């Protein structure tokens, strides 16, 4: 198993195309994701990120090309692919009528695991939802709902996790919590493919970043590689002022959270990223 993973990429995408009637959303997408890494698919709204994630998670068939996930072809062996993945969609996929704990038990039962109640309690504790565990998920805040959503995705410890815009619509604190969770996942050996439209998110989290633009990957590399695409940095004097986010976090959160927030500040490269061809 481990030798397989080191040779075979966790995700391999080759020439994937997808059109909806006359709209060519994906026009031949290629990339591979190394097992145990965080891979960010960066693109603006409508770039086709979600379409690609839906193809990789067996929800949608590609028109052309092939994709393998954990060594299984998504088109020909969808059931095998589903064994090794977990999808956290763009909109928190929780059952609002059930409590947080019941949501977790439901997924554990559907994954045919023993002691679903025990698994649920563990995850509630890990995602600081223990107190809210017996409340309806419909009453949760956006951040709590997203945490529950991700906790549901971790049940059964799938080796590959898809996160489609995991922090869209979250407040800065909830966003940092999600980031921390994603980092921890990768440290535990899980392969994470995340899509995002936030440049700082890709910069902070990803081992490799691919930029999806008009249906193809126009750049794919590590952050350092992408930065080298632009002319070498000029040294300029810029007065360092705290960003509004830093001010906000310092004012509202305890020390732990504000530390996490300052980690995420890139040095101007956020803006540079936008000018890539």
């Amino acid at each position, binding site marked *: 198993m481990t030798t397989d993973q080191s040779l075979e990429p966790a995700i391999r995408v080759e020439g994937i195309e997808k059109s909806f009637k006359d709209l060519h959303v994906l026009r031949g997408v290629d990339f591979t994701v190394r097992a145990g890494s965080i891979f960010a698919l960066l693109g603006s709204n409508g770039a086709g990120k979600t379409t690609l994630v*839906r193809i990789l*998670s*067996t*929800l949608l*068939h590609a028109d052309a090309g092939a994709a393998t996930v954990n060594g299984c072809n998504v088109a020909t062996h969808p*059931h095998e692919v*589903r*064994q090794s*993945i*977990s*999808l956290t*969609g*763009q*909109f*928190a*996929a*929780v*059952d*609002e*009528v*059930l409590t947080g704990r*019941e949501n977790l038990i*439901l*997924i554990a*039962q*559907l*994954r*045919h695991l023993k002691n679903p109640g025990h698994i649920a309690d563990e995850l509630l504790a890990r995602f600081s939802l223990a107190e809210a565990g017996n409340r309806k998920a419909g009453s949760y805040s956006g951040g709590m709902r997203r945490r529950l*959503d991700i906790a*549901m995705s971790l049940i059964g410890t799938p080796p590959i996790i898809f996160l489609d815009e995991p922090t869209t619509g979250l407040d800065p604190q909830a966003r940092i919590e999600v980031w921390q969770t994603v980092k921890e996942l990768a440290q535990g050996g899980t392969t994470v493919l995340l899509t995002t439209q936030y440049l700082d998110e890709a910069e902070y989290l990803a081992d490799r970043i691919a930029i999806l633009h008009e249906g193809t990957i126009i750049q794919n590399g590590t952050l350092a590689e992408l930065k080298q695409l632009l002319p070498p940095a000029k040294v300029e004097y810029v007065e360092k002022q705290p960003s509004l986010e830093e001010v906000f976090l310092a004012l509202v959160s305890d020390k732990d959270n504000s530390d996490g927030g300052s980690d995420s500040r890139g040095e101007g490269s956020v803006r540079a990223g936008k000018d890539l061809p």
Partner: protein
Amino acid sequence: MSSHALGDTAVLTGRSLRHILRSPDTIITTAVTPIALMLLFVHVFGGAINTGSAESYVNYMLPGILLITIASGVAYTAYRLFLDLQGGIFERFQSMPIARSSVLWAHALTSLAANVVSVAIVIGVALIMGFRTGASLALWLAVAGILVLFTLALTWIAVIAGLSAKTVDGASAFSYPLIFLPFISSAFVPTASMPGPVAWFAENQPVTAIVDTLRAMFAQQPVGSGIWIALAWLVGILAVAYVFANSSYRRKIS
């Protein structure tokens, strides 16, 4: 894959039954309209209706009322399925290694459970209003069997509606003609009293055969060949709706 089909269906049925238990208003709403109709027909129109039989009017019209109860109950089945599709939870289920058919069957079984409760409430009210039957346990089981078939047939129609609807209103709109159909049948007045073409339609549509069979069973009368016509309709509608529901499900998930 099919090894988990039963277990997955049970888990998902448990989930949607919990939805109903937490908002029992859907069951009560389902029962309220038929009960209001029953009061209206028995105490307002009933006096002027000549059914040509010696039975009390509440006995005469209860079978039709039960069908209306089920026809309005399945609107909620389409509604619940539509809401699942709208939220992300459906896609989560589809991306998990669960038996594909279990998602639809869970909704179908939940529909059956909810309608059994609604029908029981309506029969309870009918008993208070003077409905009487000497039907044996075997006849009651036969009545229950026909009502279960009717519920399943309409449930799979509801599944088609829930899967193909674009809006919440659209999801439940399919039930209006179904609720209306008993009015152009032998459910409330004898078909002989209707003008020619209407009478022809009423005599040849499924509700009349089903209503006449149920009425004969409650009255311990011979059901005659009508029961075979009723069963043929029920099994036929069930089979066609089931096939169409599953093909639109496959189109939806692939």
